[in-house]
């Protein structure tokens, strides 16, 4: 098992190197002269030159890259021009908001999609199967920001069930003392039920939006993989031996059908991390996605670069985790490693 983990870790290293190179190249492709940009519009040619030397922009590309890597190793991603803060500090304070939203969204969609896929696979051609097909086809066609806006209109404007889509917490509440950074967990630790309820109310709609978005690939994969497993011989044997349908489906079939579903989660995460940006904009969610969007509009490049890097590193880490999980679920993978 440890062998497997080490092997997967080694495989993640080239990806990380690629990620660092690409984010570096993205900065260098930036149109215009960064030195002139940092020196300000009123700067003389001499001042621009000084800034250029100070930033190391007069050095060859390789030297600049080495500098960039050294900075990264020290956890230095530069400063945001708009907030004046180091990008690392900004991202650290905003990451929990995004993580909470994404995780709750993913959990919601797994809770709906997996049972839906199983039911559709066990009753092909039935009402549930058609429902599953409609959900998977419609789900991939829905622009995530559009779903979010429709939910806001229905549940906030028409029905009044949801609070205004303005961030993580109503302005009348003060955030709980930060322990995990997840408001839901922190408010429970602090023992404030009203705070927990307020945070949950704000979270429901954006998480639902993300959930609807990631429903389709998970349900589709669950259905396909369950169908394949259900027609295999060991399931037939289990049925012939007179086991209850529940035992056959859950204990025998589902455990084997889980593997492709877990693999799909990697792809789902790629979509979720991107969709997160759009959902955060719709719901004014103070996560790293909306941070990046604000920076993009202000042409403040350091935060955008930090954001792309953070997301990519997160994504590589998640894929690593999924690979390891794969080994935990399927003992055969351990032998192969």
């Amino acid at each position, binding site marked *: 098992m440890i062998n497997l983990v080490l092997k997967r870790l080694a495989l993640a290293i080239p990806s990380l190197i690629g990620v660092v190179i690409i984010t570096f190249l993205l900065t260098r492709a930036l149109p215009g002269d960064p030195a002139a940009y940092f020196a300000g519009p009123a700067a003389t040619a001499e001042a621009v030159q000084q800034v250029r030397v100070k930033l190391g922009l007069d050095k060859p590309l390789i030297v600049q890259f080495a500098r960039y890597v050294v900075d990264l190793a020290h956890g230095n991603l530069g400063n945001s021009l708009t907030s004046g803060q180091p990008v690392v500090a900004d991202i650290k304070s905003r990451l929990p908001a995004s993580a909470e939203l994404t995780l709750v969204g993913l959990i919601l969609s797994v809770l709906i999609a997996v049972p839906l896929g199983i039911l559709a696979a066990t009753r092909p051609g039935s009402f549930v199967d058609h429902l599953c097909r409609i959900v998977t086809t419609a789900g991939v066609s829905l622009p995530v920001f559009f779903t979010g806006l429709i939910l806001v209109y229905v549940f906030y*404007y028409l029905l009044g069930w949801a609070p205004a889509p303005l961030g993580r917490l109503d302005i009348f509440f003060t955030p709980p003392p930060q322990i995990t950074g997840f408001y839901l967990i922190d408010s429970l630790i602090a023992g404030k039920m009203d705070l927990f309820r307020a945070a949950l109310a704000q979270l429901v709609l954006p998480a639902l939006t993300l959930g609807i978005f990631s429903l389709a690939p998970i349900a589709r994969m669950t259905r396909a993989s369950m169908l394949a497993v259900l027609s295999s011989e060991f399931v037939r044997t289990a049925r012939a031996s007179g086991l209850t349908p529940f035992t056959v489906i859950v204990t025998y079939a589902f455990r084997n059908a889980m593997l492709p579903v877990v693999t799909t989660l990697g792809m789902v995460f790629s979509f979720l991390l991107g969709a997160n940006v759009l959902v955060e904009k719709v719901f004014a969610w103070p996560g790293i996605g909306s941070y990046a969007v604000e920076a993009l509009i202000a042409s403040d490049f350091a935060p955008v670069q930090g954001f792309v890097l953070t997301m990519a590193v997160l994504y590589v880490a998640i894929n690593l985790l999924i690979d390891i999980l794969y080994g935990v679920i399927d003992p055969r993978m351990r032998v192969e490693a």
Partner: protein
Amino acid sequence: MTIVEQTEAGSEAGAGGLAATAVVADPAAKKASGLAATIQHGRYIVAENPVTGLAFGLFVLIVLAALVGPYVVPYDPLASDTVAALKPPSLHHWFGTDQLGRDIFSRVVVATRLDFIIAVASVALVFLMGGLAGIAAGFFGGWTDRIVGRIADTIMAFPLFVLAMGIVAALGNTVQNIIIATAIVNFPLYARVARAEANVRREAGFVQAARLSGNGDVRLLLTQILPNIIPIMVVQMSLTMGYAILNAAGLSFIGLGVRPPSPEWGIMVAEGSTFMVSGEWWIAFFPGLALMIAVFCFNLLGDGLRDIVDPQRRT
């Protein structure tokens, strides 16, 4: 529905006619009978799955809107009329008007062209880049394969939409760069499909025969491998077209690429989003709906095309 019915009737007649010829002049009409079989298979699929027919009808409608939309809309999509601002849908303004009194129906129809161009251009670009790189990787193997594989892996290491954001931010905030970014994030998909298909055919009999007749590698690639891969790649194109539109609309929703006041579905939804909380739903709803229908249509069409080209992969 009339378009669909007509197409169905037309293909039926065509298939019948071709089949008849095939029976009469058998050896000479090998090709025609192949075509007839394809049409028959297509007919079977449309009959089995009328949704594909519907998707085709929608596709024709979208292409029409992109071609003649700007000439037939009732209002100028850029003309503001402050007296008629924020009016709900009515007989005069079918989809209502926005905060500047612009007619949303006209804007939605006119926007079709820009969105369609972005999608088609980015898909064509990635078809060229990814397709050629993938074919070369599958055909030559070795270093070419390793380099293309590494590039694809590196792109795949990013969440795709996030990478597209970074690329547009770095290259500059223009429509052209949205097309490039969308093409780049789709590169691994195309490269992999093309590589797998080229790899299977590398040692095929007809390729060996062509090689023994003295054809060079490049010629083999272009005349033997490429034509055989095109059907699969076309399916791939129509499957990713929906994603390309969504990606571009998402980028313009967060303020990248398309600048106001040009009509584009993503930016129109963004403009309408602030009015959603105060009840003016139509500003964001109709462009969003158009976007949804377009993506839906491309996805269904892609599935339908795949059923025709590659019946084994039906799900």
